[in-house]
């Protein structure tokens, strides 16, 4: 059966080989595919333009709002660290001639100034209400990515713009912003302090307490409705809870010695605390309904600053059991402790990323405290701050994209940075310390 095939091949094969060889000898200039390697983006921010909002109906109170709304939205986008907001001085488009709908303006006017994305919006004031309509454009492709209307009070346009900014962030990065989250902190003046909150963008600063005392370690409950903190108001470092809705503060624990809030459990039913009632500082678990405490660490050395992992299975804490203060991780029941930080002579204030795998802490480096992050398994240690001030008390934003920390420079400041250490901005100045980031409001 195979004979005919072999027969066929006998005559044709040498000839085919000959032809192939001849064909190969004809030079055909061909440039084979060349590969170029690009190792990193030129920019770590998206170039973004916000056109002035256009009034849909004139009237009193609309003057200055066009640029005002655009500027404010630009500021919100800027503080996220994801966008490079292009100054309106660079704009080519004539706002009197261009519209806000697709087809009524030229994308080339915006791509020419380097914008990747563009927001165009309009507004209308109707009685006490402000109505904003906005569209997010992909300038490169000429597409609409988002078209949405927002209505609210005209005296609070920032609420609408924060929602718009959060929606833009959701579309472009897959996760909304933390514009509606707060940072609680204390402001010290001549040894007396009180608790304050401020929004992520640095606005709406409010005072919560009137203790005028030495305060420690404010800690948000997971629902964002209360803050636990320690105050020396009555002479002893006792534990208090402040209810943000009612504005009331009540004392919940006053064992002799230290009563220090550590971290709420993810379900909000328990609170890790540090007490020294049994001799030295140890970590206890406080049940928030029965107010019973259960001891978790039993040790002759000091164990403080417990921080729950987001899944509630592990607890990071600080102990000097190996001589110097170092960060350890143990199981939620107090067993299986292992040392996390192996470098440096002083590591403290652990805070678990809401994303779950990484912890931030402050560590001594070159005689100063600096902010570090480290993987839960102790790998990939990264120093994020390098300045000449002591940088302390890092905590994460609820989306895990930012870290707020305090700096002793200039009498006490709070800074926010992106988790890779870039885009540092000052949130509060003047005696501020112990920042702690709220969860998202529920």
């Amino acid at each position, binding site marked *: 059966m195979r004979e005919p095939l072999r027969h066929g091949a006998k005559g044709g094969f040498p000839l085919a080989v000959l032809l192939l060889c*001849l064909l190969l000898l004809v030079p055909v200039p061909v440039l084979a595919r060349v590969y*170029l390697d690009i190792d990193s983006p030129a920019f770590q921010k998206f170039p973004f333009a916000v056109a002035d909002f256009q009034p849909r109906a004139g009237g009193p109170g609309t003057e200055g709002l066009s640029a005002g709304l655009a500027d404010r939205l630009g500021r919100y986008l800027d503080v996220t660290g994801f966008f490079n907001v292009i100054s309106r001085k660079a704009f080519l488009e004539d706002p009197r001639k261009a519209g806000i709908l697709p087809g009524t303006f030229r994308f080339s006017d915006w791509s020419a100034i380097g914008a*990747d994305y563009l927001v165009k919006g309009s507004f209308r004031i109707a009685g006490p209400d402000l109505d904003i309509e906005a569209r997010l454009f992909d300038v490169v492709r000429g597409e609409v990515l988002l078209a949405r209307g927002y209505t609210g009070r005209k005296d609070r346009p920032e609420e609408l713009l924060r929602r718009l900014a959060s929606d833009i962030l959701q579309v472009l990065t897959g996760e909304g912003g933390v514009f509606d989250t707060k940072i609680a902190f204390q402001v010290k003046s001549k040894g007396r302090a009180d608790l304050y909150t401020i929004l992520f963008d640095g606005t709406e600063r409010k005072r919560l307490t009137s203790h005028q005392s030495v305060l420690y370690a404010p800690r948000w409950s997971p629902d964002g409705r209360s803050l636990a903190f320690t105050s020396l108001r009555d002479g002893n470092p006792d534990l208090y809870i402040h209810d943000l809705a009612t504005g009331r503060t009540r004392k919940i624990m006053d064992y002799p010695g230290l009563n220090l809030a550590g971290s709420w459990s993810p379900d909000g039913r328990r609170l890790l605390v540090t007490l020294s009632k049994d001799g030295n500082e140890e970590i206890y678990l406080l049940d928030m309904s029965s107010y019973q405490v259960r001891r978790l660490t039993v040790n002759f050395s000091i164990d403080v600053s417990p921080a729950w992992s987001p899944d509630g299975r592990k607890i990071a804490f600080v102990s000097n059991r190996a001589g110097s203060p170092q960060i350890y991780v143990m199981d939620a029941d107090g067993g299986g402790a292992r040392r996390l930080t192996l470098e440096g002579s002083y590591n403290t204030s652990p805070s678990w990323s809401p994303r779950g795998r990484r912890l931030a802490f402050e560590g001594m480096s070159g005689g100063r405290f600096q902010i570090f992050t480290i993987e839960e398994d102790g790998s990939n240690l990264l120093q994020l701050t390098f300045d000449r001030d002591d940088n302390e008390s890092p905590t994460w934003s609820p989306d895990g994209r930012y870290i707020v920390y305090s700096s002793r420079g200039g009498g006490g400041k709070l800074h926010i940075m992106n988790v890779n250490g870039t885009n540092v901005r000052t949130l509060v100045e003047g005696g501020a310390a112990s920042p702690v980031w709220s969860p998202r409001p529920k």
Partner: protein
Amino acid sequence: MTFPGLLRTHHRGGGSLNRMILLSGVLHLVALVLLMVLGPVSAPTRLTFGPVYSVSLVSMADTALNASPAADLTRDVLGAVRQDRSTVLRKEPDILPKRKNDPTPRQTDLDRTIEELRRKVAQTERAAPARPDMTARLSTPSGGMSDSDLNRRMGVYYAVLWNRIRSQWALPADLTRGQALEAVVHARILRSGEITGLEFEKRSGNRFFDESVLRAMQKAAPFPPLPEWIPDRMIDVGIRFHSSQLKR
């Protein structure tokens, strides 16, 4: 069941297959002879497969801004549309500063030496991470230009591409979550400099990363028109984007 059927077909057609191959051979031979006789006489073609070169370039940010010898070539590449196209090749010695400074008849030897040195440097510096790394594999083209000349000029064109694309690539570090990612796209660049057939050869798996890579390509295009000395109607380029330097 189908296998014996196939064999039977071959069985019946065995004799004619032989004839067909013979006929095809004759036709090919005729075509070949015609091609050789009527082919371009002016451009002497060299029947070699050409060496494989590795071209390594420093950042175009330097070459484009400084008045280095490559800068003139860059201008040549960027300003490829010329009034008098026929004289471009003859003008070349004036364009290249090296030749202007040292117009010796042993220019090709010198070029070859430089190319060899460059190859050595390229080999030793392949590991240097800060540099854009390009590997070009060219077969010897026609047109009377030496391999090294063409390679050098292609290198400049590729450096322009590299610089254009990189300068358009924007991606916040947070979106890669500290992962080491790689995406490879390829595209064909037409004579006009426009790109066609932009496609992923390999996706990174991170949609933000992949999206940013496509945007960089779209924003960078159109590229400068292909210079005349490029022998092809279009060139095929692949671009590997890495996130290795993005910290978490």
